[in-house]
């Protein structure tokens, strides 16, 4: 799942697919509908997600949950920015908006004010632990979700912060990109 926004959605550039993406799964014959003759088997394969018997559906959901839990362990990605030292406000932002927020953080640094950021790269699973840890750091007075939307991200941030710091929101939408000055103004209110 890619955290998109209007600008990212309209970007175009060449993409090279690495060779390893073209590899074939080795256990294909266990499940693929490639024809019984192809795999020399008398057992037919069935690809489906419909389970009408509650016990079967429950078992299937448990399997999907285990898969999701593995994603939580292995696939969550986020990028910290200026989190090494102390900071008074934590920004959570993604996509184009996070690029503006970097400028905001750099500008504050020149004025001697420290602001940190967590940039989620995966949305599902959400980098809950990273956001919680960053918000829990001593000296962090507030968290702000800066978005080019009316608050698509802020609820995930609130869930992750679990009340250790107040969570605020700043954003614009319709394709209007908040300027660094506007974001700084919003952050300044929390310092």
């Amino acid at each position, binding site marked *: 799942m890619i955290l998109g926004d209007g600008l990212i959605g309209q970007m175009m550039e060449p993409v090279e697919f690495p060779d390893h993406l073209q590899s074939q799964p080795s256990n294909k014959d266990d499940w693929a*509908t490639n*024809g*019984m*003759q*192809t795999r020399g088997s008398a057992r*037919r394969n069935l690809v489906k997600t419909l389970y009408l018997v509650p016990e079967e559906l429950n078992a299937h959901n448990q399997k999907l949950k285990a898969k999701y839990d593995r994603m939580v362990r292995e696939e969550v990605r986020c990028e910290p920015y200026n989190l090494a030292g102390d900071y008074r406000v934590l920004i959570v932002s993604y996509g184009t908006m996070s690029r503006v927020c970097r400028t905001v953080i750099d500008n504050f640094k020149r004025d001697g004010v420290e602001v940190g950021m967590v940039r989620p790269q995966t949305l599902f699973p959400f980098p809950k632990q990273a956001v919680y840890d960053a918000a829990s750091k001593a000296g962090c007075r507030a968290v702000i979700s800066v978005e080019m939307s009316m608050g698509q991200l802020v609820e995930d941030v609130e869930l992750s912060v679990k009340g250790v710091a107040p969570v605020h929101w700043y954003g614009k939408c319709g394709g209007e990109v908040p300027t660094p000055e506007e974001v700084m103004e919003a952050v300044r209110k929390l310092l």
Partner: protein
Amino acid sequence: MGKAFHRPEALADVVTHYCPGCTHGVAHRLVAEVIDELGIRGRTVGIAPVGCAVLCYNYFSFDFQEAAHGRAPAMATGIKRVRPDLMVFTYQGDGDLASIGMSEIIHAANRGEKFTTIFINNAVYGMTGGQMAPTTMPGQRTTTSPFGRKVAETGMPVKVAELLSALETPAYIAREALIAPKFINRAKKAIRKAFSYQAADTCFSLVELLSTCPTNWGVTPVDALKWVEEKMLPYYPLGEYKTPEAGRLNPAAGRKHAE
């Protein structure tokens, strides 16, 4: 003395969930017989619809896949293009094919995808509770047209065989009915032709099968068969609408349905 009647190998030895008098069972059997006769069970992949026949994979004994509602033609396109040596068919009802999946089937047919579609037209949405379908007959009562389908509000029923045969690309389009032995024999011939054309690497083939839904029509199985003959046959003429050899045909003008 040899055994004259047996269950096709391609048909699983299980009891189906279909209602008494439903003709899905007949359609399944015809497909299974054709697959047996052509000897293609080991290289056939079926795509199930959403609707009563979503569980049809439980009644066939070869590879099968579910598809999102109406998207069986897209699934079939992918499988057939990756593995042209496989025999691929979709089995779809009128809600799946002619309503939510109308765009999918038209474009798959027009692209000349080399799979076969078995299209079950029973003039109603079965699984969801007997709502009006695009194929519902004028004046036909359904749960969403309780006073009968009003043509002034909802138009006339969609004729899928005619619609698709208007396209230049598809190879074989036919409509038959599953209401009596003479019709069922004709239907089997059409299904066999459709699969045979695919086996010969000819592009898209579709057989529309007029079917019954006694439960949602609120009639007995016997009356349901009569209803198809009296109400549906005059509006949905049977016959071949397009063949690779003869091109476009007009069964409505050419011959009677019961010949």
